[in-house]
């Protein structure tokens, strides 16, 4: 490098060791929490939403710090966000279709 006049006007961000370590520890603690809530507490109908909520928090940590989206510009966040947006569109119309055709069991029997 160094032969270019623009060199140095933008530098790579180094994510500190302590942040990476803490994120890893948080993910491990949340994994224990997932197992604990699912296996040792009987949450009934809340089991799936709770498991999903913990998974969502873990996913946010991975995306923000390991994948570095916290340190990115908005461009890449929007790009990645479109994936989830269209996934939501897919889920919405699939659910809408099936849940408006009752009785549901008849469709599959």
């Amino acid at each position, binding site marked *: *490098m160094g032969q*270019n006049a*623009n*060199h140095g*006007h*933008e530098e*790579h961000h*180094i*994510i500190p*060791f302590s942040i*990476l*370590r803490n*994120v*890893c520890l948080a*993910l*491990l603690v949340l*994994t224990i929490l*997932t*197992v604990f809530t*699912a*296996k040792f507490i009987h949450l009934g109908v809340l*089991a*799936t939403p709770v*498991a*999903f909520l*913990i*998974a969502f928090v*873990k*996913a946010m940590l*991975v*995306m923000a*710090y*390991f*994948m*570095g989206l916290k340190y990115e510009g908005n*461009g*890449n966040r929007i*790009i*990645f966000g*479109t*994936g*989830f947006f*269209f*996934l939501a569109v*897919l*889920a919405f119309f*699939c*659910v809408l279709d*099936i849940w408006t055709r009752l009785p*549901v*069991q008849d469709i*599959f029997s």
Partner: protein
Amino acid sequence: MSTVNQTAKGEHHYAHHFRDAMHEFLTSKEGIWVFMVTEILMFGGLFVGYFIFHALYPETFHEGASHLAWKMGALNTVVLIASSWTMALSIHYIQRGLNSKATMCLIITILCGFIFMIVKYFEYTSKIQHGLLPGKFFHYHEAVSQQLPLYFGFYFCMTGLHGIHVVLGMSLIGWVLYRHLKGEFNPHYFTAVEGVGIFWHIVDLIWIFLFPLLYLVG
């Protein structure tokens, strides 16, 4: 990669159509993020299917999950989280010029991938032996729910596709490790490590959802 130029010393020079090295880095990374969108959509379809059929046949999914070894799933979760950490650390160390530490991190990441696949092998073998297989291959005689083959269809498709990603990720990290050992990366150029890292993290990300949904909640 045809536009990546390497000088005799192995130092990276950005392709001529980029303004500067950072421009090349950001462009490459944007491409990786677009690729990640396709990954979300590919796995997303399976997740939407899972949620719909889970809502239709909750007992089936509960029975299916009871056949899975959740302790093995939990072990694999820990292994993947650790590997994601070492992957992120390898980039951290390359950026700080600590090359031997980065080498160690990349090797540990690949080893974690191997551990994950070995655990998966034991899980799959047990399911195959008991006849807990998708669709017409299902021949487990003590099944209560008639739709149990459907659950194992989801199980094998989702974990199988994920497993393929683990193997691909390991190969890519191997390629990055090879280039790293050749001294191609430095604090100013580590684009391939960054890209492969993002891919490896999405493998972790998907498992974070697969583990509770398949093994725990069911």
